[in-house]
């Protein structure tokens, strides 16, 4: 049943977000720390286990992969509901703070990727 996959995915996300929030509480902030990341690890671990014991049926997988494959339109919808106008009207301080940060960040990413990158990068 396809719903098993979607249910599993939802349970992983709900659990992960709860754990992320608990982690935030422990650290004393009203924010979630790594909720989505924890959810991803949960999903990977549970799916690996189900595949090993042979309980992962193709329809169950379809209930998960559907959501993964609809990711791009969801991100487009996310872009369409951003407060772009506020970014454009934020004035010079906001514009420069954002722009310089992005510039510096790209430079550091490039540096980190090259450092210690001995094995040739394989297309992921």
């Amino acid at each position, binding site marked *: 049943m396809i719903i098993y996959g979607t249910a599993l995915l939802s349970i992983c*996300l709900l659990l992960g977000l709860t754990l992320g929030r608990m982690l935030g509480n422990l650290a004393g902030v009203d924010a979630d720390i790594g909720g989505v*990341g924890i959810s991803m690890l949960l999903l990977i671990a549970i*799916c690996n286990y189900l595949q090993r014991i042979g309980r992962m049926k193709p329809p169950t997988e379809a209930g998960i992969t559907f959501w993964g494959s609809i990711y791009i*339109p969801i991100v*487009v919808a996310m872009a*369409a509901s951003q407060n772009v106008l506020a970014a454009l009207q934020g004035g*010079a301080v906001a514009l420069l703070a954002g722009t310089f*940060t992005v510039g510096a960040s790209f430079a550091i*990413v490039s540096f980190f990727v090259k450092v210690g990158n001995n094995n040739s990068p394989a297309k992921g």
Partner: protein
Amino acid sequence: MLNAFQSLEIVLIKNSLLVAFAIMGATVWISYFLSDRLTQGRLHGSAIAIFIGLVMACIGGIITNGKQGIADITALSGIGLMGGAMLRDLAIVATAFGVRAEEFGKSGLIGILSLFTGITLSFAVGGAVAYSFGYRDAASITTIGAGSATYIVGPVTGSAIGATSEVIALSVAAGLVKAILVMILTPFLAKHIGLNNPRAAMIFGGIMGTNSGVMAGLASTDPKLVPYGAMTATFYTGLGCLLGPSVIFIFIRTIFG
């Protein structure tokens, strides 16, 4: 005729999520068509789609003066639901299906290092810009630096350390500028910074940190990299909210008093 128009409007408002699916389907279709015909596939269809999305958001903002882009138009409010945190997180977690956990483990250390570097860098650069614009109090400098981390870290830090609402608004704007620039620039810069493997994507997610920017930027570069970037980026905002009002604020206060 008026009746038909009114009926349609009622249906659109009552079924706003379906309207969103239809519009996003059309947007993606047009974008892939343009990518194919105009750029011979050099510029990824999803990059064009995300750009169109940002233009829509801008139009929505101009028409309604709201905060949610095109989703503030009542008949299009479903776009806000479709692109909201709930479905976005569901889709992003689903992209991890089929990824082997060892991939995350192999780059775990550099991922963590990237997170701390990225957060420190954002505070430093954003704070320096604030300083050069004449802000001299630690709370304002820290808050604008926090906004340069993400548009969530900004207001969280700002309200924790008592920044003015004007400075908090600036920090949100700085974070939005960052997210939008990362969305737009990533597909163009990916080749130059070696962003073509899981390890690089984890570094990218950790240093950029802006969830929406990282997720959209990677989607329009290579969708296979999305789960890796998302894995590190998802820790960034929480960590920023943790470090900003505490360690980083105290550090900045000892410098500027």
